[in-house]
Structures are given as C-alpha cells and as structure tokens.
C-alpha cells in the first residue's frame, strides 16, 4: 500500500472533550484514552486528539486482524474443497488434472443457468455438481482411461480439455462476467466493517461436505476400495476390486467437488469463463504443501496458506502477501519434499 499522504497524520492537537465518558477500573491498565469503548466508570475526562487517533488506529488494526483471520479461514475452506478433488484424482490415478480449474468454472456456469431456470441457489448447488460429475465421467471414460498410465500425456490431455472447456463456455456463455446473487443477504458487524453471513454459510457447507467425504472414504464400501487401490493397486485387483470402476468414480467425485466449490464461490466472485485459471495454481500449491495424495493435509494446508496470505496482507500489500504463500511452499519443499503431511 502506497500512501501519498496519511490521512491521520495531520489531525490537529486541539482537545476533544467527550462528555459523559467515564472510566472502568477493570481497564485501568490501559493508557487513558487509548480505548474509550472499555471505559464505563464514573469520572468524566478529556481525550486529546492524539489519543483519539491512537484509539482509532488500534481499533482499525484489531478490526483488520479479525477480518483477515475470518476471511482466511473461509477462503481456506473453499480452496480446500477444490484441492481435495485435485488431490483425490492425483492420489489414486496419479493424474495431474490441469482441467480441474475449468471444472470449477463449469460448476459455476451450470449453476448460473440452473438459477436462471429454477431461481433457486440450493437446487443449483445440488444439480450443478451432478452435471459436472457426468462431464467428468465422459472425460475419464472417453479420454483419460486410454492414457492413464502415461503421466505426461495425461497432463497434455487435461490441459487440452481445460482450453476446450474454456473456449466452449466463451462461445455459449459469452465473455462477460455474470453474477449469482447470494442466497443469504444478511451481514453482521465486525468492528469497523461488516462481514457477509453468506461467507460463513459457505464455510459451514464446505465443512459439512468435507465431513461427508471423510465418512464416505472411511465408512463405505467404495471408500474402502478407493483406499485399497491407493495402497496397492495390484493387490486390489487380485482381491477382485473393480479398479477401473474405482478410477472412474474417483474422477467423477473429484470433478463434482470442483463444481461444488465453483457453485459455492460464485456468489462471492463473478462467474466467467476464466475464473478457474488462477484458482488452479493455488490449488496445486495447496496439494504440494499438504502432501500429494494426503486429503487431510490438503485441508490443513489450504487453511494455513489462506491465513498466511490474510494476516500477511495486514503488513504488506495483499498482492505481495501471495509471495508469503509461495515462500512457505518453497520452505516446505526444501525441508519436507513430500509435503507437510505426506508420507
């Protein structure tokens, strides 16, 4: 942040008299005038302008810190959903899915069309991931299955899918960004600013989805098969697990998770054909930091990176705070090349 001049710098030193403002002995350790909100005692007093400025500044910093932490967690949870899908596909199929960001975008675009027809965000939240999951199924069966043991070819192939999906959406949906209205418009006060309740709701939905995914992986037959294939593919085949089917459903699930994130993020960001481009890079960073193939690691890494960026942006311009996330990734790769939680 570059300041041509600081607005607070020239507050004159004339005295402000705040009538009726009294001091609570419980907060006597706080210098007088620094935090008048806490003052609720008996005696009136006078604050000078410098103290008012200091008070304002402290309140501003606390407000910023609270928002940075809250927003970091919310974005971390959305990013975790995207990274989970990416990591699942990598963990099981060993495919670096370059089309994952395009599937995230596709989720938002399909949701936009569904909302146009039904008028309901919640219907779109359920149906859009199913539609994108079906597209994922076509991609897996039609393209990836034949080349799934050739990593370089799959990268090129999924990159091609990404470009094809982007251009197709540009052709049909157009280049202008569109908006999905937040289904919850309520905002709650947070110090100097307000915070939209919708973001908290998105975070909660993400948590529910992640718990659902954990139950699916731990408590269902398919989840067991998936874990078995990750551990030892040959043994899984020998035991009669339908590995091809497991691959297919994993790709479908990964695609649907990307679409879920797209629908959830759409009321915050805008829907457009390039919205998956930058998200993909951040999702890869999260997967690398969390450990490739480690789903829990992805969740924690997503929240950590978002918090690093959020809190870092209090001290440096937010665009530079992104460098912190990259520096963090480099440090992790130097000391734990397998990722923070990878084995």
């Amino acid at each position: 942040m570059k300041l041509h001049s600081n607005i607070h710098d020239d507050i004159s030193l004339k005295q402000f008299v705040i009538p009726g403002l009294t001091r609570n002995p419980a907060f006597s350790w706080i210098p007088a005038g620094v935090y008048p909100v806490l003052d609720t005692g008996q005696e009136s007093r006078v604050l000078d302008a410098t103290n008012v400025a200091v008070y304002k500044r402290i309140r501003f910093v606390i407000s910023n810190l609270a928002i940075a932490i809250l927003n970091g967690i919310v974005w971390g949870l959305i990013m975790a959903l995207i990274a989970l899908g990416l990591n699942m596909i990598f963990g099981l199929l060993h495919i670096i899915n370059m089309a994952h960001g395009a599937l995230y975008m596709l989720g938002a675009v399909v949701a936009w069309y569904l909302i146009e027809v039904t008028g309901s965000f919640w219907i779109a939240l359920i149906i859009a991931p199913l539609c994108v999951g079906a597209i994922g199924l076509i991609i897996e069966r039609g393209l990836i299955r034949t080349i799934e043991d050739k990593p370089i070819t799959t990268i090129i192939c999924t990159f091609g899918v990404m470009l094809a999906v982007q251009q197709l959406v540009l052709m049909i949906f157009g280049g202008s960004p569109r908006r999905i209205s937040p289904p919850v418009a309520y905002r709650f006060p947070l110090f100097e600013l307000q915070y939209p309740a919708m973001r908290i709701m998105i975070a909660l939905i993400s948590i529910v989805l992640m718990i659902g995914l954990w139950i699916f992986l731990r408590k269902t037959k398919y989840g067991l098969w998936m874990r078995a294939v990750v551990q030892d593919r040959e043994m899984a085949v020998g035991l009669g697990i339908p590995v091809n089917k497991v691959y297919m459903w994993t790709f479908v699930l990964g695609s649907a998770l990307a679409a879920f994130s797209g629908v959830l993020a759409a009321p915050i960001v805008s829907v457009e054909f390039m919205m998956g481009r930058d998200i993909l890079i951040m999702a890869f960073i999260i997967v690398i930091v969390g450990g490739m193939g480690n789903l829990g690691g992805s969740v924690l890494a997503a929240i950590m990176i978002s918090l690093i960026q959020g809190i870092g942006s209090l001290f440096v311009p937010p665009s530079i705070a992104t460098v912190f996330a990259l520096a963090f990734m480099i440090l992790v790769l130097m000391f734990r090349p397998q990722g923070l939680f990878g084995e």
Partner: protein
Amino acid sequence: MVEKKSKKKVEGILKKEISRRDFIKTTALGAAGLSLSSWAPVPFTYGAEPPIKIGMFNEYTVFATEYGYWLGKVGKAAIAKLNAEGGIAKRKVELVDYDTKANPAWSASMFKKMILEDKADMIMGSIHSGVHKACFPLAEQYKIPFFSGGAMTYELTGKDGIPYYIRNHTHARTQALAGWKWGFDNLGKKWTFLVADYAWGHSLAREFGSRIVAAGGKTQEIRAPQATQDFVPYLQKVDPDTEVLFTAFLGSAALGVLRQTVEVGLHKRLQRYTVICCTEGIGQEVVGKESIGAYYIEYHPRHFDQVPKELQAYDKAYRKACGVTDDGREVGNPKVTIAGSHMWSMWIYPYMIKLGIEQTGWKDSKKNADLINAICSLKLKAGPWCPVGDLDMRVQDHQGFTDHYISKVEPDLKLKVLHRIPKENVMYDPEIDFRKML
C-alpha cells in the same frame, strides 16, 4: 485400381477428337460469356484500383472479450456502411480480422501477418495497452497507420508514443481532467484509489491523485492484481476517513470490487466513483443492486434517453447500424450489454480514413505520412459518422478529444447522466510533436 481408372480417363480426354466446328463454337461461346460477364452488376468495379485493406484485431478470447466483441462488431458495421456508400475514393474497403488473445507477443505476430501476408494498408482495434506497445516497433518499421481501439494508457499519445499511432478516444489523463474536479467538489476531499496493479490502474490513480493532492485533498493508493476475486483483504485497508473510493478494474474484478464494497458495508460511509471502463459490456443488473448510488465517468451515454438531444438523431442511426437497442443492449440478445463508451472509436475511424484519403489523394503507403497528418488534423462535427458529438483531433500528438459525462446508477439500475463535461475541459498541453518525426 484408382491409378488405372484415372489413367483411362486421361486417355479418353486425349483421344477425343475436336473438329474445327467444335473449336469455333466453344471459343465463340467462351468469348460471349466473358464479354457478358463484364456487364454483370459487380459492387466495386471503379477502375483497376485494388481494394483498401484495413486490418483489425481485438480481444475476442482470453480477456476483455466484452470489449473485443463490440469493437469487432462496430468495426464491421462501419466498413459495411462505408462500402454501401461507395467505398473510399471509389475503392472497396476490405477488412481482415484477428484475435489478439490479450497477448502482446501473439498480437505482434498478428500485426506482422496483417502487414506482410494480408497486405493491410492500416490497422485498427484492441483496448489492450500492452498489445499496442508490442506492435509499436512494427508500425514504425513498416510505417503503417495504427488506430487505437480503446487503449487507456495516456502515455501512448505522449512520451511513449510513436508517430504512426492515432487515438480518437479518451484515456486516463482526459478522464482525470473530466472527473476529478466534479468528484472533489461533490463527493469528498479524501480519496482512496483501489486500482488494478498494471499500467492502466496506476495511470488513473496517478492522474486523479496528483490533482486531488494539488487541490488540498488526501489520497491513499491500494493496488490489487487484475485477477483478484476476493477484495476483502484490500477493502479492509481502506482508511476509515476515506470519503471517496475510486476503483479501477476490468471484467469480473470490477464486479467483485463494487459488490464486495457493499458486502463489507463501506458504501454507507463513502462514495463510490469509477470509470465506465470497469463495467463496459456488463449490464448494471449483473453488478446488481450493489451498484446503486455508484458514480461513473462515461465517454458516451449507454442509454439512448441520456444522449444529449442534439445528438439523438445520429445516435439512433448509429445504434441501428450496429444492432443496439435504446437500452444499450444487443438487438435480439438483451442479456448482452454494449461497450457503449468505447466501441464508437471503431465507427469513426473508417470515416476519418476516408476523409484523410480524399484530402491527400492517398493511393498507397508512400503517402502514409500525409495521410496521418491529414487524419490527425480533422475537426469532426457531430453527424451520422460522429454520433458522439464534435471530435477534435490534435495533430501534434495524434490525440482526439470528445465530451465526457458523469453518471450515477439509479435504483432502476440505469446510468443517469448528471453532468456533461465539454471536450475543451479535458484538453491538456501535448507532450510531444509527431509532425517532426513522420
């Protein structure tokens, strides 16, 4: 098998005997056909002059596509009108059209292709300053007139410019000259600039900011990447005493910043001010009710009923030719909003080229210098080819000047013009004199 068949066919043709009568009959028929064909109605047969080729490139994919779509559409409509009216100096005008992909390196290769392969006589289009800069060396090397579609970095017709570059539209400095004083007097003295972290955003913050500070105001500048999706980390840095929040982003980021300003409640304690570039090609309904109360600087009103009365007849015809409704949407596709403050540049250029060629007797690139000087000396009056009102070109720096407008988003999500700023108010001293360099 295939080889045998074709061999037989060839032999058949060769063996066929042609009598003298057959030969005379065929020749006579051919000659009659040829002479008749010269009588057939052909749109452009005005002598042996080849067509004038105009190269066009715009951002059709990747980024700023809402601009590219309209600049391309209006450019084509203008050339069609020009040809329907007899072309330029009785020569047909042909258009070759390419995508810049918003990529300077790619655009430079397309620019070269248009010059060398398509034999374009002049090139127009693109709103991307980086694309323009990348093409400058080629325009200089081949001495090709290059017309800006909508690049807003003011230095392009200043210290960073080239003598072959022509811009008939506004840019960051003229916008600042148009809008800073009105904003300072009516909206507030303490400004925060939240702008895209590249040349255009910096340019706007610098141009507005320097004037605000000089007038005794205070400014704060926050830069964010153009691709920013979540603006909360940036908005929370806005100084609590700020009275005016000036934002400058394109596309989805422009939507995001306007909406998220409301989401965090900042709109209650400050005024939002921006340039129309931010939501060109995007309907206010897409931004949503969060845009109500925001102030814009427009370079031509989006809605027909906001166009000054004396320009309405011209504007009506221009909208009809370009397939635009009175409400500023595409005919037959009401979800598509026009890039109304930008696209007119492509409507006016073909006419400026026509006037320039007619004045100089230009035939080919040998007279490009004269052509550029003639075009940049034009003082266009409002008319069917200049629906935005009078347009003054300045021969020194090849910059054009038109009126600007301050508009506000009303509760019905329409941009209502509050104030018209005459072109004389946005003029500044030229930084360079290209006349000596051509």
